[in-house]
């Protein structure tokens, strides 16, 4: 047996008899390569700018500690995201609870109501809120006509308006994970609790609620992450006064061309979201949360 023939056979052996894992890797290699070249590399380049523009070093990251402007913006972003998450979860829990306990026919209609807003552009929705909430809008006219208030309420052009718009946008993202979790809760547990003498409230509080918590945790992180990067709604409904991280980054890139600061903030956002997702994956089944399982 000559050496070339030997190596040829071992090459054939490699492609035919390699472990299944290797073959899977080979199968997804083109996709990975594509992702690497067109996604990971450019993003890496952009993030690298946070260390090199305008000068090499950690100057941009130092701003996190020293710039009052950036700190205030981060605080606004965090505050609005947390509040949005809380309000969304409260409402989403109620809707999901009603969904789970509705008859199949009613459930279908309710689902339509939950999903339809998902298909409407966030811009259109912001304008719809504008029509409803403004000074001479439907809600204020109705309230004043019925004598509930004398002067129009400030429902828009402030954080209240931003919150209303954002909670509305996030609701389906809150409802669906909670619903999918609640659907899997064995209703016989509740029946058993009731049979053992628990009141309706106790059965909910001590059995149903704890069982539904994984869904709530999943939904909360999902909603929070989406809220962090929100751009359109705060810009439109905040009256120009609610500055969150996405808009801040945009200003840095397109207007004042401080690319280092922008990529530093993008990196921070990416890290925060990565950490949250990692935490989430330990608490709940991510595949199931995103509808794959």
């Amino acid at each position, binding site marked *: 047996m000559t050496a070339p023939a030997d190596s040829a056979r071992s090459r054939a052996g490699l492609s035919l008899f390699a472990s299944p894992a290797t073959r899977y890797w080979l199968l997804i290699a083109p996709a990975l390569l594509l992702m690497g070249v067109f996604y990971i590399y450019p993003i890496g380049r952009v993030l690298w700018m946070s260390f090199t523009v305008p000068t090499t070093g950690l100057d941009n990251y130092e701003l996190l500690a020293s710039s*009052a*402007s950036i700190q*205030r*913006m981060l605080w*606004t972003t965090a505050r609005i995201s947390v509040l949005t998450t809380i309000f969304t979860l409260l409402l989403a829990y109620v809707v999901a609870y009603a969904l789970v306990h509705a008859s199949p026919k009613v459930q279908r209609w309710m689902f339509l109501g939950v999903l339809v807003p998902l298909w409407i552009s966030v*811009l259109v929705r*912001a304008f719809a809120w504008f029509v409803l909430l*403004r*000074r*001479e809008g439907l809600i204020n006219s109705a309230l004043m006509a019925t004598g509930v208030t004398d002067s129009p309420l400030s429902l828009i*052009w402030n954080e209240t308006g931003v919150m209303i718009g954002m909670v509305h946008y996030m609701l389906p993202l809150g409802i669906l994970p909670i619903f999918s979790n609640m659907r899997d809760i064995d209703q016989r547990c509740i029946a058993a609790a009731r049979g053992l003498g628990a009141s309706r409230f106790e059965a909910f509080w001590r059995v149903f609620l704890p069982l539904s918590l994984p869904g709530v945790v999943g939904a909360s992180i999902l909603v929070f992450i989406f809220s962090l990067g929100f*751009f*359109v709604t705060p*810009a*439109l409904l905040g*009256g*120009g*006064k*609610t*500055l969150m991280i996405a808009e801040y980054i*945009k*200003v840095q*890139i*397109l*207007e*004042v*061309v*401080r*690319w280092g600061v922008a990529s530093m903030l993008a990196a921070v956002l990416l890290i925060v979201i990565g950490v949250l997702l990692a935490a989430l994956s330990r608490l709940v089944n991510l595949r199931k949360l995103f509808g794959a399982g």
Partner: protein
Amino acid sequence: MMEKQSFAEDCRALAAELGGGQTRRDLIRSALALGIAPAALALGGGAARAQAGKEVVLVNFGGVAMKAFDEAYVKPFAAQGGKIVLDGSGALNGKILTMVQSRHVTWDICDAGITTLAELGPHGALEKIDYSIVDKTKLDPTFAYDEGVVNYMFSSVLAWDKSKISGEPTLADFFDTKKYPGRRMMRKDSQAMLEFALLADGVPKDKLYPLDVKRAFAKIATIKKDLLFWNSGSESQSLMRDGECVMGLLWHTRANVLADETQGRVTYTFKDGLLQPGLWVVPKGNPAGKEAMRAIASMQQPEGQVKLLAAMGNGPSNPAADALVPAELKKKNPSDAANAAVQAKINADWYKANHSKTFQSFLDLISS
């Protein structure tokens, strides 16, 4: 709409709203301008490019501005043997800088403003304007800068809702919520808004610069809770039209349209307004080289500028155009001698040195 918009960008939006809309042919033409022209330039390479050196790519914000620019600028230049290709993709500061830094410049002339000078000048991303070709006698020398030259004029003005405000308010009244209660609006930019605050506070028109930023911020802070900040021209228009604000500081083009569409319920004055130039800038290393300067010189002809005034409301930059402006357009023209006389003029030098940090502090002020 949610993004902060430049005046040049708003010109296109406004023209579209006024009914022109985009026709199919416009779309095809802009598609051609957008995709194929730059691609052809890029692919052309050496010899072909030398031949096509006559072709000047002019970037504006697209839409109906394409048609107006075509009539006002492209055709007259063609009559002189030159060629301008319009590209409607919008030359934002970040985009120009990306192009220059990657050394792949496909644009020759960009429709820009003072802040472009301020942000890109220090990066060395702009060519010097060649005033041996561009004629300084055909413009107000106040608006001829090293790295940019005026193409048209616009104003930031005070508008008010006559159904809610009696008499003619002054800038001081804009900052006096006791005298005239109600919400006001400003542009979400320090440019022009600081000038208004200082004028209201008693600084004379000719002594505005260097801007006393602290004083202006303090003045704005006094009415902050009654202020809204608009991003785009159409937003400023709808806030006034829908009665959300009793007074507003906005662009004269939008104020003109508001006055028409509300049958005079909303009105405005050029008095104590701020006259600002729209600028041509040339990215460093532009493909057509000096031909860009010849195109700019050609666009100084007053006839084309009057056409632009009629189509989009942008004021001519060539003083000689004044004589050609029809009487009914005169009172809407920001650069009309009578209107210009009652306005302050923006000072680009101050913006070059201060815009970036002032704008950031302005955002911090309004979002705190």
